[in-house]
């Protein structure tokens, strides 16, 4: 065995010694849990960005709804065609906001791959 081989072995042993505490099962489990938790929960920045964009979009849509439905001319009869007259514009705006919020809530837990 040459001196170089002996040094290589010492070097490998030194690296293995430095890495040994990380190989403890408790360490491995704790680290794995942390990563899996981060995978399950999208990061805060993404939540804030998507939440902000969703809220702004639904607020803008909400302000437009009243004008859109208040001047509506319905040529047909029947209960369904009268929904727009039975429900107040505020209620419709609230429903639209709820739908927008629901869509944001659906998108938030998913990660972009």
């Amino acid at each position, binding site marked *: 065995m040459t001196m170089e081989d002996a040094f290589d072995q010492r070097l490998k042993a030194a690296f293995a010694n430095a890495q040994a505490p990380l190989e403890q099962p408790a360490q491995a489990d704790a680290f794995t849990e942390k990563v899996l938790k981060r995978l399950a929960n999208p990061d805060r920045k993404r939540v804030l960005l998507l939440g902000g964009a969703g809220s702004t979009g639904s607020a803008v849509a909400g302000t437009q709804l009243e004008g859109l439905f208040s001047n509506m001319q319905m040529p047909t009869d029947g209960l369904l065609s009268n929904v727009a007259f039975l429900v107040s514009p505020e209620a419709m705006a609230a429903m639209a906001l709820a739908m927008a919020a629901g869509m944001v809530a659906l998108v938030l837990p998913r990660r972009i*791959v």
Partner: protein
Amino acid sequence: MAATDAELTALVIATRNDAAFGELIRRHQSLVRGMLQRMCRNHALADDLAQDTFIRAFEKIGSFKGTGTFKSWLCSIAYTEFLKSARKRKSADRVLEKFQADVEESEAPRDMGNVVDLDRALATLKEEERAAVVMCYSCGMSHSEAAESLNMPLGTVKSHVNRGRAKLQAFFAEAEVTV
């Protein structure tokens, strides 16, 4: 019989199975964390980067073609995360390096079995030399696997390993003379 890395990877690609990916993390976390700890010389930062590495690996696991080992693919992601982080904190690193250089001058090296001394010895290497040495000696990669992970030509990796190894040998030889 435990599933191989290739089987677990295929399962994660097909079903995004968290349990299978958890097993891959459990198997390789010490390798990735050890490698990043030796390269960063900051354990908290190394652990953050190791977490980012596994999350990035999960996100882009579809791009793992299985031509090399999962280990070397993972190490290449870890090295990319390390470089990204190093670029971000370049100015902070300069201050840190100056501080570490001061420590090196004031303290004599002790022995190779000591983790602190190993890190101090690695601090004397250039970044590419350190990465090549860590991949070959800490991660147990062959020169060609390290070349693939570092995205460098094989000859360049061999040179970095040889130069790095020679510097480490000189560092520890000095330690033995001092002790």
